């Protein structure tokens, strides 16, 4: 019984804020609504016995990605402008398409996995086992992930740095030029 209550609470704190993320008129509020969604997913990871993933979810999503998104929002103008349109003109079609995808996913899941047995018992302490797996059979994806992160960091710096330092290239009298 407690398991069900936990699941329903986690589902609510995941899905209701997620709905606010995609519908909120204030883009900054939408970014803040991501927080309970990410925490709810971390809670699901905990109930599924993946404690390490739950901790990583909080660290990376809440501590990294959400803060990064909020910083980027602060760099753009018209944050809380109620006049600004937040959705494009295809909003209705987008809604129909999203509902269709969700219905297809849920119906196929129900057909295929509607009656599942209880999960197999987990070994004690999945974190240590997962560390061994990462440095054992899954060493290659682990290393590829580090290369990917390096490429992403370098690429992000190159793109965000902009087009060099204008004062050295442009003649001081003219100024301006291409932004």
């Amino acid at each position, binding site marked *: 019984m407690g398991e069900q209550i936990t699941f329903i609470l986690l589902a609510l704190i995941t899905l209701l804020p997620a709905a606010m993320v995609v519908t909120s008129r204030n883009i900054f509020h939408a970014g803040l609504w991501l927080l309970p969604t990410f925490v709810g997913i971390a809670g699901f990871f905990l109930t599924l016995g993946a404690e390490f993933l739950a901790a990583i979810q909080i660290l990376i999503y809440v501590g990294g990605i959400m803060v990064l998104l909020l910083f980027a929002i602060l760099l753009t103008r018209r944050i809380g402008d109620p006049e600004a349109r937040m959705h494009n003109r295809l909003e209705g079609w987008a809604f129909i398409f999203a509902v269709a995808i969700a219905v297809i996913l849920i119906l196929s899941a129900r057909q295929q996995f509607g009656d599942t047995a209880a999960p197999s018992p987990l070994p004690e302490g999945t974190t240590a086992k997962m560390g061994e797996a990462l440095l054992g059979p899954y060493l290659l994806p682990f290393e590829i992930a580090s290369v990917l*992160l390096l490429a992403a960091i370098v690429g992000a710096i190159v793109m*965000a740095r902009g087009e060099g330092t204008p004062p050295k290239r442009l003649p001081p009298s003219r100024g301006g030029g291409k932004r």
Partner: protein
Amino acid sequence: MIHSSVGLYHYLLVSGLLFGLGVFGVLSRRNAIAVLMGVELMLNAAGLNFVAFWRFKGDALDFAGPVFALMIITVAAAEAAVGLAIILSVYRRFDTVDVDDINLMDG
């Protein structure tokens, strides 16, 4: 179809709804950062699916599911960093981050 305990289908239900919300955000939002938020929701739904399938269907001693979910989180972090750098340089160039207004390649 009523179960006494929480099963795989319930996790798939939550993840399907979360994915649908993400799709709606990606398709309907005008602000490029809000589009990225929709992508993050979809990636979270996929990661939840991986862990749920590992728990209910997989071998408890083979950690392919959680390892793949970890990879998804890594890719999401890289995607957020690169995506926001792109949005930043688009903002410098066009003075807007509305994806509707960025139509340089619209013939």
